[in-house]
């Protein structure tokens, strides 16, 4: 089981990593993935996406999923 993790923008600089591939031994939520990659408390404005769709932190991630963590967006 491999889950691809991506980190964007200011969050990448705060954590010092741009992503990871993790092989969890048990079922994980998005919040579990966060805790797996860092000891830091999730920022209040943290956003999350699973397979390119916005997702809640209680979303379950599965083998082959791509999960992303990022700060509020700011295009246009």
């Amino acid at each position, binding site marked *: 089981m491999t889950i691809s993790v991506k980190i964007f923008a200011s969050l990448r600089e705060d954590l010092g990593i741009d992503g990871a591939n993790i092989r969890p031994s048990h079922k994980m939520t998005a919040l579990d993935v966060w805790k797996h990659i860092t000891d830091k408390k999730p920022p209040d404005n943290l956003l999350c996406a699973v397979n390119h769709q916005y997702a809640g932190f209680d979303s379950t991630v599965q083998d082959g999923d791509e999960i992303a963590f990022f700060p509020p967006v700011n*295009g246009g």
Partner: protein
Amino acid sequence: MHIQICPQAFNPWSEVADYPARSEMKPGSYGACSVFVGFMRDFNLGDKVQCMELEHYHGMTEKLLAEHAQKVNQQYGLADLLIIHRVGMIYPQDPIVLVAAWSAHRAEAFDGCRDMMEYLKAKATFWKKESLEGSEGQRWVDNRKAMPL
């Protein structure tokens, strides 16, 4: 419908002028085109801004924009929709974003263009990092809420 994430500078006016000929719109089938172009300012929050780096989440950005463009097309009965958004290094006065909506009448073109632009501001996965003039360094730009429709 065309959506493009663009790493190079683009000319929004020629894109709008050229698009109908390469789209599936038939000449005479539309009576309105509403265009929004966003440019980079050289100031923000009281500081002079030298340049800006625009980052995006490749894959998710395109997916979100395509899904919402489809929805806007149907909701407002548009003839077509063109969206171009810059990424990479951007300098003051460079165009950042183009949203152009074609429709039979003006109301749908105005509303569709506005809806797409507000969605883009609120949901599309872009982030801006400004480089300030002098020794002020760099900073990430905070999100602002989308204007209500």
